[in-house]
């Protein structure tokens, strides 16, 4: 069964450093997402990406965050200057059809720890 692959599984970074989280969505999927889950809390939507541009973003997704799909396969989330409160599990997801509400597949997540 096709999978969404995320790397690394765990990243530790110093406050103020830039991090890039990487995702390889399912190849025929058209919508890509990043969600995050702060430890012990709910999963929160960050951003969606379609047709090589951001289609929706939440209040969490401020100027410190950016996404891109540099080569047609990878989908990355960049945090420019990490803060302690960015420590969370970050999930990538992709979806196959923009006209329907189903078909989401999530990756296994990247646990980001900012120290």
């Amino acid at each position: 069964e096709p999978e969404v692959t995320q790397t690394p599984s765990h990243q530790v970074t110093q406050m103020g450093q830039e991090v890039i989280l990487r995702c390889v969505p399912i190849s025929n999927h058209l919508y890509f997402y990043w969600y995050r889950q702060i430890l012990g809390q709910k999963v929160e939507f960050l951003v969606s990406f379609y047709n090589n541009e951001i289609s929706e973003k939440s209040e969490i997704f401020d100027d410190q965050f950016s996404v891109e799909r540099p080569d047609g396969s990878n989908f990355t989330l960049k945090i420019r200057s990490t803060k302690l409160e960015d420590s969370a599990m970050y999930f990538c997801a992709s979806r196959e059809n923009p006209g329907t509400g189903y078909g989401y597949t999530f990756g296994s997540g990247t646990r980001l720890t900012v120290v």
Partner: protein
Amino acid sequence: AQSVAQPEDQVNVAEGNPLTVKCTYSVSGNPYLFWYVQYPNRGLQFLLKYITGDNLVKGSYGFEAEFNKSQTSFHLKKPSALVSDSALYFCAVSSLSSGSARQLTFGSGTQLTVLP
């Protein structure tokens, strides 16, 4: 705006007994409803979804959920719980009003513990 409520942070059930994990939602328009399970230090694993059609939806590992439009609920059920079902369960909703991206809104999660 859409929202999901999981009123129970924790559900305990004895192995072999039926289990129910509750979920209610609020959306504009028709909902798309999902259940995901998360094992410790793992990602979100899809269990089942309701898009349209029969109100009773069957999913993975013997789980099922019943869509109740009048009560705006989508409770997760299993007739006979297993110890291996112990995990964190998330209900999520999407709809046509979510925006073109149809992003999911998650509930706060319910920790299910099945006691041997």
